């Protein structure tokens, strides 16, 4: 038997050598050490088995991507978007301030819709609708004229209806408790006339006269208490809403190279506002607000140090009151000027006070770039507090937020902002499509 095997082996070797000899001159000849050529498994059986569920997910994704690419679905979508925009309708998708909820909307440019834009390029007539399920519904409109008589003078009127079904409230002052969680349904109607002058693209002054009506409905829902019950016995000004008139002056200087991904320049917004209650509303106060940020490029446009200072003080006049909904607010990502200012480790609207002060220090640096796409990482520190009177200001009332953010942008426009912030009330995660400042 052994001899038989030896003979067979010799025969095979002889054949192999013969084959080798015949190809000796051709080093590219298809003579292989192990014939016939056979496909080896790409993976061991266990790894291959582990991959199966993922392959099931991959298949429809691959098919969809090929379909999108081959049928130009992406181009069609962009084209339809541009086309709609060309007709004066701009779809809007974002995230709400109070939760990671999609916010959808439409902005209508009425001048474009009526094909009067070319004829009257300086006339502005916009209307917009934004909606987030169980959260907010906003209607905005603006009618006005820019560059009056070829100057920087402009004027416009505003109408705004703002319905927020879950506006959180935790009390007034720096030492409120997250446990005193209440929420209100708030509807605001805002009517304003504005006039301003644009000295240059970076310097602008604006005056506003406005009427505002605030309607509040108290109720307990979704684990949050009724404000009138939780804060029973406390004097919460404006707890039943009210009507008011505002006179406001605002000076804005903005020298940033881009708004979303500034690597140099700064902005300063300084405003003074007088509010006076109408009818039985006792509101009467002055609001001073300063919001300033400066961006330093650290030897590279890919490393930016951003510093922000925000201060607001509301000062009662003639024994008037400051309704809680007009107070300075801190908490959340603060992507909307109308609402709570960014103090990222705290929930949206976490702190209400007659005054607020906030400092933010943020180091932003590029970690990935591909053509016009860019991913910035950020390390930030927010230090802020609310307080009522200046003599009650205490350094010990400052609260900290610190954390990490990732900002994905395309052509310097933020597409996605994913941020994790930590503070003494825990950790908060945000998904937005704006940067905080």
């Amino acid at each position, binding site marked *: 038997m052994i001899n038989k095997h030896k003979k067979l082996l010799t025969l095979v070797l002889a054949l192999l050598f013969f084959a080798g000899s015949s190809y000796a001159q051709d080093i*590219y*000849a298809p003579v292989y050490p192990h014939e016939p050529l056979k496909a080896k498994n790409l993976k061991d059986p266990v790894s291959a088995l582990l991959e199966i569920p*993922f392959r099931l997910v991959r298949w429809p994704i691959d098919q969809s991507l*090929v379909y999108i690419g081959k049928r130009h679905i*992406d*181009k069609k979508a962009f084209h339809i978007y541009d086309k709609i925009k060309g007709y004066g309708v701009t779809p809007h998708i974002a995230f709400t301030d109070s939760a990671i909820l999609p916010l959808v909307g439409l902005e209508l440019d009425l001048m474009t819709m009526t094909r009067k834009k070319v004829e009257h390029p300086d006339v502005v007539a916009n209307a917009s609708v934004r909606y987030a399920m169980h959260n907010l519904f906003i209607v905005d409109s603006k009618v006005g004229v820019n560059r009056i008589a070829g100057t920087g003078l402009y004027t416009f009127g505003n109408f705004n209806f703002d319905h927020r079904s879950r506006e959180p409230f935790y009390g007034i002052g720096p030492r409120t408790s997250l446990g005193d969680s209440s929420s209100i349904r708030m509807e605001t109607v805002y009517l304003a006339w504005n006039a301003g002058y644009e000295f240059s693209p970076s310097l602008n002054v604006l005056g506003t006269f406005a009427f505002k009506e605030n309607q509040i409905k108290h109720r307990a829902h979704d684990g949050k208490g009724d404000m009138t019950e939780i804060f029973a016995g406390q004097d919460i000004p404006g707890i039943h809403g009210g009507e008011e008139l505002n006179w406001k002056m605002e000076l804005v200087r903005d020298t940033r190279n881009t708004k979303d991904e500034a690597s140099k320049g700064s902005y300063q917004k300084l405003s003074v506002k007088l509010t006076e209650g109408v009818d039985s509303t006792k509101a009467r106060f002055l609001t001073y607000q300063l919001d300033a940020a400066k961006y330093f490029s650290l030897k590279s446009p*890919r490393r930016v140090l951003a510093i922000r200072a925000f201060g607001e003080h509301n000062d009662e006049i003639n024994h008037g009151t400051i309704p809680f909904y007009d107070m300075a607010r801190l908490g959340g990502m603060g992507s909307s000027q109308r609402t709570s200012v960014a103090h990222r480790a705290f929930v949206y609207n976490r702190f209400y006070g007659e005054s607020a002060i906030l400092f933010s220090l943020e180091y932003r*640096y590029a*970690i990935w770039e591909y053509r016009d796409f860019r991913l910035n990482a950020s390390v930030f520190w927010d230090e802020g507090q609310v307080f009522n009177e200046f003599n009650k200001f205490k350094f010990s009332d400052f609260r900290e937020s610190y954390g990490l953010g990732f900002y994905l942008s395309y052509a310097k426009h933020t597409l996605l902002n994913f941020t994790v912030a930590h503070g003494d009330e825990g950790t908060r995660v945000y998904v937005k499509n704006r940067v905080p400042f």
Partner: protein
Amino acid sequence: MTNERLMKKGTVFLVGALLAIMLPGTLCAKSAKFKGKATHLYKDVFDQNVYYEGVNQLDFGRWGRKLFDREIPAANINIFDEVPDSAFFTNRHARKRLSAEELEKGYSETEGPDLSAPMTVTKGKQEGLHPGFFIRDARGDAYCLKFDAEGYLELATAAEVIASRFYYAIGYNVPQYTMFRFRPEDIVAGENAYTYDDTGFRKKMTPDLLDQYLSFLPITEEGEYLASASKIVPGRNAGYFSFYSRRKDDPEDTINHRDRREIRAISVFSMWLNNYDVREDNTLDMEVVENGRPVIKHYLIDFNSALGAAHGGPKPPMFGHEYMIDYGETAKAFLSLGLWEKPWQKKWRVVDERPYESPAVGYFSNEGFDPESHKVQLPYETFRVLTKADGFWAAKIMKSFTDEDVRAMVKAGRYSNAEDEDYIAKTLIERRDMIARYWFSQTTPLDQFELSGNVLRFRDLALHYGWGDPDAIDYTAEVFAGSKRRKPDEILTSQEPVFSLNPRYISPNRTVELRIRVSRRGDEDPSPYIKIILDEGGVRQIRHED
């Protein structure tokens, strides 16, 4: 009607129906034997940057190989450690030196579109302001015309034509590419021509629309349009070829593509040509009939992102340094808090973000080029499993092209400025040497083994190309003459590329195995071995350590 008759009728009906279903399939089998597979950039990006980057982490074999420093040897190499000709690859310049004319000409069926009558546009291929056209010429041949971006005349067109010459001479199948000039009157819209423009919707290619597209194109000083014309490959389009697995519908495709040396080495050759956009969507499988039966021929296509070009203009600076989504580089940048400046960022900063002087050259420089860390657009596993032996094979082919050969192929770009041609050639020559030198340093760069009597001679390619001191080299051969080959019977050393073997090893019906290593003075470790099996008839097997 009885049950039996009913049964019979039913059976006849069933057989008839089956035949009706199967017969057309059988008749069509000859022309549609291979399934048409489809891919797209989006799929390529998702698969490679997301799916495999994740799923590969569940591959125990992969972890095992990393842990124990094991490699996957190429499976399609012959007894001489070479890649035999196949539907993927044909040894061309390495087997028989191509003349300067042949190198410059590349794969050629015609001289380019025939302009004896106006070309007819059959289909448009619009991307932004960069139109392309499928045309049919006076001879009836079909071509795809692609153009440069405004302000970058010759950049993408020349890059495509030059790269095609290199890939072809190396051994890959490529379509015919020609630098092609024509005047506005040489092109007309076909009656049924259509295009998908930026809207994504199909539009009829009217003469007005054609004029509009042409108006976006850069023109030469002579008022001509300049295009790279690729001749449409004959046969039936069967989709793309995977860089990972074999085509299961092709009986001749027996080896998984991950394990094919020539596919792994695409990364090395693409590194040379700065062809960042090498991916599955830029491959093509064509079903052709050879010797009366349908077979698949595998092509590489679309090289207009080679050299200094990229879609829409010069290559962005991160290309070649990072994958499209590079988790490793991103993590490094994140953890270093942005204080670590990536090599491409430094290079970009030093030249004040204006690295190119000529728009026809774009961004193609060897400054900061590192053959070890160079990357193409997507992290194909096939390119990652490239072994030292595979790299050496590719480097050896690259070095088979002399400086004059490189210049001959660059000449095909027909640059209007001789300085541009010279710059491209010099950069390619320099890069060829950088890559070859790197791979030679990773292996035992010995070749051309010849047994004469009991004397084994070979060529040290590193020395041959002038990289190293001949007086500072030791060659060591472990000789295994026994059948078990566990312990060497003898260790030979030599300072010359020659070993004199004991004549008793070279005797009838006996083989001897040599494991040769090179020690260059200054090297800490000896090189990997190269295994040679000899018998009385000469060299029987060569194998570089992976």
